[in-house]
């Protein structure tokens, strides 16, 4: 088994906007090994989000190769891609994307529905994850009754509930204030210490400093890819 979790070769994503072809991602070749903590940086429109959507199997490359855990995603149909999203990838979004009017517990259990896990087991695993996020006394709260930081922790619990290989976080601190952002980065660092690969998309340079490796996009291409020199540590909340 390879230690490479992710490999891209000449990855391209084109969009047709107003009759003109835009290369949102243009010939990107890179690899991410298991256990890395990567921050993908770039201005808006640099292609970082498009790149992340492709490695998250949410979007399909126009050309090029994407190997995920050794599997060429070109060969997969939509069901197989759904299965990869379900079992190998955990998503964390800027706007949390929790189901409204649904308890934290049920929100965290959603991915397990699609794994085919039974009701009781779903709830048990969801509860474990929420407790690990320090939300033991918030199980029945709906998103409306949770703070932003709490909502993002519920979302992280949801991302982790299927034991994925990789967390993909798209601007996870974008809607949070500095102190809460720090807490969230602490959680990511702790999870990374425990072995999970974290890929983080952000446009904030200081948030990127919590990662171990920084990849910078501009105009659909990687212009910089290096280890973070003075890495910051945040104590987990």
């Amino acid at each position, binding site marked *: 088994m390879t230690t490479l979790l992710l490999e891209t070769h000449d990855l391209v994503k084109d969009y047709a906007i107003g009759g003109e072809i835009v290369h949102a991602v243009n010939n990107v070749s890179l690899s991410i090994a298991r256990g890395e903590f990567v921050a993908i940086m770039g201005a808006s429109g640099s292609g970082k989000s498009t790149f992340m959507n492709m490695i998250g199997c949410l*979007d399909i490359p126009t050309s090029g190769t994407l190997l995920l855990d050794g599997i060429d995603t070109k060969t997969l149909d939509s069901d197989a891609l*759904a299965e990869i*999203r379900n079992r190998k990838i955990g998503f964390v979004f800027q706007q949390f994307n929790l*189901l409204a*009017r649904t308890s934290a517990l049920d929100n965290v259990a959603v991915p397990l*529905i699609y*794994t*085919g896990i039974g*009701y009781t087991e779903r709830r048990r695993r969801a509860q474990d994850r929420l407790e690990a996020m320090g939300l033991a006394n918030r199980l029945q709260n709906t998103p409306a009754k949770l703070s932003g930081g709490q909502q993002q922790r519920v979302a992280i619990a949801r991302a982790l509930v299927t034991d994925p290989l990789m967390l993909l976080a798209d601007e996870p601190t974008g809607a949070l204030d500095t102190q809460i952002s720090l807490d969230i980065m602490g959680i990511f660092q702790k999870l990374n210490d425990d072995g999970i690969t974290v890929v983080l998309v952000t446009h904030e340079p200081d948030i990127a400093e919590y990662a171990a490796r920084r990849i910078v996009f501009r105009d659909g291409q990687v212009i910089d890819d290096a280890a973070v020199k003075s890495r910051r540590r945040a104590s987990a909340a």
Partner: protein
Amino acid sequence: MKDVLGSLAGWGVNVAIALTALRTNLMRSILTTLGVMIGVFSVILAVAVGNGAQVSVSQQIATLGSNMAIVVPQPDSGSGPPRPSDRGRLTERDGQAILREVSGVSTVAPQIRNSVQIVTPGRSATTQATGATPEYGVVSNITASEGRFLTQSDVGSAARVAVIGETVANKLFPETIPVGETIRINRVPFTVIGLLESKGSNLGNDNDDQIVVPITTLRQRLLTTAAQGPDDVTLIFVGFEDEDSLLSGQKEIERLLRDRYRVAKGKINPFTVRTTTEIAETTGEVTQIFQAVLVAIASISLLVGGIGIMNIMLVSVTERTREIGLRMALGAKRSDIRNQFLVEAAVLCVIGGAIGLSLAILAASIFERIAEFPAPIGLDTAILAVAFSAIIGLVFGGYPAIRASRLSPIEALRSE
């Protein structure tokens, strides 16, 4: 096996998701359900009323008696002034000839029917008198619930006796059982010897509003018109041993009577021979058409209900595009998304169907009580209703559900 259990569990989840979504937009869900409810309600009620008409008709046929032919004289309605030879005639001797010469005939019951006025001290009633023989009771399944029916000796002696129907009895003798009482029929005193067993009413026709007297007595004492011959009858009931001999017997009766009345070739019969089977068939056809028309009209409202479901499901899919994207990101397959919305539509429809069915049962029972018209709703109708509404859900929920499942995950997730 594991797959089956897994998919069942999946459906359970979908029902839970559907119920949550429907509760979220409670008012909208109720209004949408209302459409299906009204549709199912009217379809079921139409089926019930149609069934009722059929039951009612077959009851009516049963009161006629089965395996029976009815011979009625039919005046020639052709051109030219009526001549005596044109007039349809039928006599008791025709009846005897039918009994003698047509195979499979078990009984003949010649009858004269006449409207009569009955008087008791203080009360009176107008009803139809049937002058008959004891065979009338046999052929048309009529017995006496009190007292007795006519006997051969009543007919032989032209006895002034009458068997009266329940409606007549209630008019004349509201408080007592009239057996043994004297009544005056067209001023002639008669003794009531029995009460006809009730045959109820069907389609507004009261079978108990009649009396039966010996055919001889009626002819001698109650006929006011002298125009008819001494042997003439109004009609003859011919009872057959079984259905097969009824079918062949109908033709034989026609041949025999044409012979007896020397009807020239090519001229139409001066009489008609109808069988209970024919009557049942034609009335059956009529009621079936009646039912089909009713159900067709009712189906339109069900169709409208279905379109309402489709409309609301399309709105629901559009509103929840982001949720669909999220679920896909979390691992939902296209089929999961499709099933989720299918179940939501089916739940709406089944709830509407169940309520519509309950209301239809209620309405049918009220209808039965008020209109005295049976409107039976059987288990089959009930199952049909619920299955039908689920199918409506699948058909009209199908398009929105498939549309939802075809969304691209990233575009759905990006939508606001």
